[in-house]
């Protein structure tokens, strides 16, 4: 079974590719560029096309599929009413899938399920990465605010932190937000930064 993976994210495409290869699906073709995509895809003639849901080339590709149905190998979206859940899972994970008309459902479902798991894993990684970055940025802000308090008010580091925390609790805000407000105020007052 020949599978085409279309994605603007090389990292995500690599994650999908790895998963499919491990499952013994080795006739894989990865497309990352929009330029010339329709022609390359027609030359590749895949049985299954997996694409990220938000790919901006989808309208153009769906037209290509609609036209090629009349010309050569028919490609239709993989939707069978008995499989609504599988498709809903795929859409939830951020995948759109197209398969050659008539390809047996039993052969497609494992491929799609695998792609869904890989997409979900990638999404989780992304979320964790974003969270880690946010935490790092917030720690920097808090450190900066502590430094201002230590310089301006002669506080020790634990006391500076305690002051930020007390203010955060009293005003029902996050420590990072209080710290950011302090830095902003300090900048506006031209506090020698």
């Amino acid at each position, binding site marked *: 079974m020949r599978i085409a993976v279309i994605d603007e994210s090389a990292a995500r495409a690599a994650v999908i590719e790895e998963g499919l290869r491990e499952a013994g699906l080795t006739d894989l073709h990865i497309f990352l560029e929009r330029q010339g995509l329709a022609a390359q895809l027609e030359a590749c003639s895949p049985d299954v096309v997996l694409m990220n849901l938000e*790919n901006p080339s989808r*309208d153009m590709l769906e037209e290509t599929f*609609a036209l090629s149905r009349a010309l050569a190998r028919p490609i*239709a979206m993989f939707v069978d009413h008995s499989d609504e859940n599988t498709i809903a899972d795929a859409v939830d994970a951020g995948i759109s899938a197209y398969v050659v008309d008539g390809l047996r459902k039993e052969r497609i479902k494992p491929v799609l399920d695998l792609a869904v798991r890989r997409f979900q894993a990638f999404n989780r990684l992304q979320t964790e990465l974003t969270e880690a970055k946010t935490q790092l940025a917030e720690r920097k802000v808090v450190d900066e605010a502590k430094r201002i308090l230590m310089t301006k008010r002669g506080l020790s580091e634990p006391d500076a932190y305690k002051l930020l925390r007390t203010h955060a609790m009293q005003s029902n805000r996050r420590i990072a937000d209080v710290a950011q407000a302090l830095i902003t105020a300090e900048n506006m007052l031209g506090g020698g930064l």
Partner: protein
Amino acid sequence: MTQDRFRIGFLPLVDAALPILARELGFAEQEGIDLELVRDTSWATVRDRLIYGHSDAAHLLAPLAIATTLGLDRPAVSMAVPFVLGLNGNAVTLAPSLAEALGGKGQLLDSRTSGQRLAELIHLRAQEGAKLRFGVVHRYSSHNYMLQYWLRASGVDIARDTEIFTIAPPFATDALAAGEVDGICVGEPWNSVAVERGVGVIVNVTSHIWLRGVEKVLAMPASRVEQEPELVHRLIRALYAAGKAFVDPERSGANAALLARADYLDGSADLIERAIADKIKLAAGQEPVSIPDFMFQHREAANFPWVSQAAWLYAQMVLAGHTDKADDDYAAAQRVFRPDVYRAAFAGTNVPLPGASAKLEGGIANPMGVGTIQGRLTLGPDSFFDGRLFDPEQLDSYLDATSD
């Protein structure tokens, strides 16, 4: 008041204005709706999110709602259109050298003249073995059907002498610049972006092909409308109020600034305001020209889903070879537009409600008072550039006369 959450999918285009203003100016909130907007980059994704419940309704191409109902590219899902989000608002932009060959010198020619000249150019180029290539935003789009209507009525053999294919609006300008296409038919602000870059000249607008022609609609799965009619009515009323604010000339700058925001169109407020104010710059370095009713979002019951508009679109789909004519499909296509839901939403308000659900499209040459079940209503001209009429009761003779 508790707020019902409701999500509307959209593409970053000027005619996504009504849902955006309904949220930003508080009209949705007044109707007890916590309106969320979900932005995407392709219509396929907007449609899939709608079908699989990531959104509750969508800013959608009218013909795509019909194609989805008929199951043209995928298993059929019945769509309902209880409200039209706007009429017209698209333009045809050609590469500067081609536009120059068409003539006109900075003014829009009337569509008959420009159509004939373009037809001659297309014929010449085809004889040289270089078919003119046009990009449209979607296979099932009013852009595609209005461009084809203009060309066909001007004597072009579309299938033989041209190539028309899909390009996502954000890439259309690049394609024009790179010479991949000779012309594009897209919505705003993308024509104006091409003009500003100096890679395109606007030679026609869709309001000069079919005045008051249906464009984007509010589409939702038909089942949703049946399940929660009252919520749909409130949403429609919020969108109507947004339309009123959208066409207020005093607000055009503020509306443009809202639409230009990074979370909506993420574009130039100046370019967006041109479309809103019906002042369009046709070519780089020129002053904008006034094109009355370039886009039309509110007056004259513009939001009323005339069943005859859906019927006209179905006829164009058949003419384009996108589907084979079938009586069941024709009936299903017309059922997508839901004037009954629109009427129910405004019953007892001061919003004028037409008495009829269909009209003779192209039949109004001068402003005309029409029968209503509520309020007073005058409809402006809805002419086709070639003066043809479309009677939804006479589909076969319309198709026969066009094929000849």
